[in-house]
């Protein structure tokens, strides 16, 4: 099978400027079908701008975006009918009641599942008659999630779904992500700066920084390829040791700690040649990997 038919999202050399500011700079990204894709990056990294291109809210100035092989700007019906989307600011019509929001949204989606929508409304404890305007932050996020999920989208896109929410609502959101992909073949893309959540639920990750994808890999590859290694030398060293694929190194005298960013490196040869001892060799948390990649 060719790559295009297997990937749900295919972005090629996407560039976006706002005035003089280049927010996205030559993004290439492919999101395979099935599983959870985590888009991570700091504030202002361009995550929301990238996501707006996926749902056709922004048109590429340069490059291309394809969702299910289609252009979301040219074919919004073909794309958005299969996409569930929750924006960062959860912009819902304030004047509607929850029940009205549900029937209003259902009109846009032929595959809307009333039974499932009711089930979600009950589990989220949302009152049909409550005005959207009066909902708490957490209830508002749940209402947004309900309308994003109830048509059982092939692709669920969540922009910073957990930001500003308490742990109980965050758990609901992560639970919804897990249940969505437990249904065979569905795909979730979510952006977050809460890296412990991403580490828990994502299969694949892309680090967006400075308008570029710094690294995109499966969680497994990411964890396996990054290691913290501490070496102890017989004699004090005036210069830090040099190992291929080294992302950072600190220490002094006999003890040096480095972070390696690739499995294929010359650590073993270097250790053998210098007579150093490896006193620590462990994997990193996603948080540490991110910081190492971004602060470099």
């Amino acid at each position, binding site marked *: 099978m060719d790559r295009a038919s297997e990937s749900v999202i295919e972005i090629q050399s996407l560039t976006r400027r706002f005035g003089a500011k280049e927010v996205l700079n030559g993004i290439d990204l492919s999101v395979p079908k099935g*599983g*959870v894709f985590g888009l991570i990056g700091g504030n202002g990294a361009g995550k929301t701008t990238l996501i707006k291109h996926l749902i056709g809210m922004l048109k590429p100035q340069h490059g291309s975006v394809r969702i299910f092989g289609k252009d979301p700007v040219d074919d919004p019906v073909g794309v958005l009918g299969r996409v569930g989307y929750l924006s960062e600011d959860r912009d819902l019509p304030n004047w509607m009641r929850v029940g009205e929001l549900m029937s209003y949204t259902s009109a846009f989606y032929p595959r809307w599942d009333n039974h499932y929508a009711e089930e979600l409304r009950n589990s989220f404890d949302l009152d049909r008659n409550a005005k959207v305007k009066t909902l708490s932050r957490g209830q508002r996020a749940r209402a947004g999630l309900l309308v994003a999920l109830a048509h059982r989208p092939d692709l669920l896109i969540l922009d910073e779904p957990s930001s500003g929410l308490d742990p109980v609502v965050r*758990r609901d959101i*992560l*639970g919804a992500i*897990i*249940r969505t*992909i*437990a249904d065979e073949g569905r795909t979730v893309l979510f952006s977050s700066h809460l*890296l*412990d959540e991403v*580490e*828990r*639920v*994502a*299969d694949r990750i892309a680090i967006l920084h400075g308008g570029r994808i710094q690294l995109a890999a499966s969680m*497994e590859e990411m*964890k396996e390829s990054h290691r*913290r290694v501490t070496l102890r030398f017989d004699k004090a060293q005036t210069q830090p040791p040099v190992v291929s694929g080294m992302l950072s190194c600190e220490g002094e005298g006999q003890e040096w700690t480095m972070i390696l960013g690739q499995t294929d490196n010359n650590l073993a040869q270097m250790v053998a040649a210098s007579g150093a001892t490896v006193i620590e060799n*462990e*994997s*990193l*948390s*996603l*948080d*540490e990997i991110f910081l190492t990649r971004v602060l470099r």
Partner: protein
Amino acid sequence: MRIHISTTDGVPIYMQIVNQIKYQVTSGKLPPGAELPPIRALAETLVVNPNTVARAYRELQQGGFLENRRTAGTFVSDQGSPLALREKRKILSERIDQLLAEAHQMNFSHEEIQQLLKDRYDLFQSSQPAR
């Protein structure tokens, strides 16, 4: 079954699940035949990706700690911990080696040893209290 997931110490999540289930099986907290929660249910409880739980279960099945009974679910293997089983085999093998060495000294043939073993086994069985 209680499993605690930490995302701060760098240990991959599937490995945390593998290690904790292994420990619970070898320590007897999860006895042979105990049923494990379905992948999807455990994923929701732990708030982790279902593929991560699936990978942990797969690894535990390969290691002989768990077994998959078709359509029924995932269970702790009946033979108990494979480590314990390997250890027991090792002890018995050493005894058998000693016996074989002695039998060889006394010029017993392979068939004679097997016949003798069978006779003694039958006698041993008949002397055991009925269960």
